């Protein structure tokens, strides 16, 4: 996957521009090239974009998973895992 528009280029000392990062969203492996991505950009990574009825979370091993809003910026690293969850459950309909 290529860089999404508006993302930062590589910084000195970091990976060269075009470096591929391996991430997971809902078990599926993706390659991205941006060092940082917004929640909205991450939602557009899967071929079928993540709809507004699902929230996006970043797995925080050993901690509380972080909910990623559309404008939130996430630093991308190899092996990062994300998952989506129904934004609201109505158990008593």
């Amino acid at each position, binding site marked *: 996957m290529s860089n999404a528009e508006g993302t930062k280029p590589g910084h000195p000392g970091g990976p060269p521009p075009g470096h591929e990062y391996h991430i997971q969203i809902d*078990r599926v492996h993706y390659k991205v090239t941006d060092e940082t991505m917004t929640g909205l950009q991450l939602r557009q990574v899967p071929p079928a974009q993540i709809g507004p009825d699902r929230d996006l979370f970043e797995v925080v091993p050993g901690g*509380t*998973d972080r*909910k990623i809003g559309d404008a939130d910026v996430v630093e991308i690293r190899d092996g990062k895992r994300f*998952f989506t969850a*129904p*934004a609201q459950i109505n*158990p008593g309909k």
Partner: protein
Amino acid sequence: MTIASEGYVRFLGEAERLGAVPIWVHTHPGEDSWPKASRWDNEVDKQIADLFRLRSGTEYYSMLIVSPRPRCFTFTGYLQSESGNPVPFGRAWIVGDRIASVRAFDFPAPPLHAAFDRNVRAFGGGIQQTLADLCVGIVGCGGTGSAVAEQLVRLGVRDFVLCDPDQLSASNVTRVFGSFPTDIGRDKVDVVAAQLARIAPEAEIRANKSMITSEETARELCECDIVFGCTDDNAGRLVLSRLATYFLTPVIDCGVLLSSGAGGQLLGIDGRVTTLVPGQACLVCRGRIDTKRAGTELMTPGERKRLEEEGYAPALGRVEPAVVTFTTLVAATAVSELLERLVGYGPEPRPSEILLRCHDREISTNLQEPGPRHYCHPDSGKLGLGVTTPFLEQTWPQ
């Protein structure tokens, strides 16, 4: 009512940390409600099952619907792997100061046999049904264990796991229920199993000719609802004590100690029945296990002999005095403790240990809290931890 993702997602990560299966639980309120999944409940399950598996790191999704009933509750639920069919829950086993069993809404109890009429008159049909549903482990099939087994099967228990590696000796016939001189040399578990089968031919009995210090045997006991500890060995008690914490399996541990003088006169007759349930001290915290002796029991015979001779290990193998009246008395006290925990006829707070000082004709009871930072303490995070690596987080003889 709606539940936002922040309201439930964090528990999935927690389940992964614990190595646990998260359960999606909700109620259908009202004492006349129907605790079965509605079409909408099924839809919710579809929405969240994959997420639950993904984030908790297990292959299972599980759900439970609970509805109130007078003085109790009813429920339905299931466990489902990614590829398999849902496995419905049949029974809830509730462990604490009191213990109880609740059958699932769609697992109605079969009618009780008229043979148990006197029991039912004493403590009601619900308790009798619970006894019929129980799987009971008995570790040690000697004087105490055989007497426990005999009483349980006559009470209506129909599922047993018996563990004992020893054979019946001539001096066992004076105490082991169901044994005859012709049984000398037979495995004790077979002798006791045969006795149970004579009383209840339909009973399921797994006779395990192994010590509980074998990992395989300890794992088998995890399937039991409750375990009676009727063994003399300290190493076995160390395992039983951990079983109660890691699997929330109530353990009723028995001990009998007859003290005799050099001339053979009986000086002391002490019995002990300790009930291990969450919130109560384990056998180690109570000082009921000689850990040095336990270590010696786990050595190979050669290693043990060498250290005994060098004075570094307590000598084992001494033949202790034992009398059927006292082993049977302690066994009856232990089985009565199970009944008390099910029926609730005793005083509160409920003692977790009964000490019988028969020589003084005295009985005393006590409660003891877990030691700080010990595995049996609720703060340790070990309560109900389940299967760990290594099993029970202890070393096992190879």
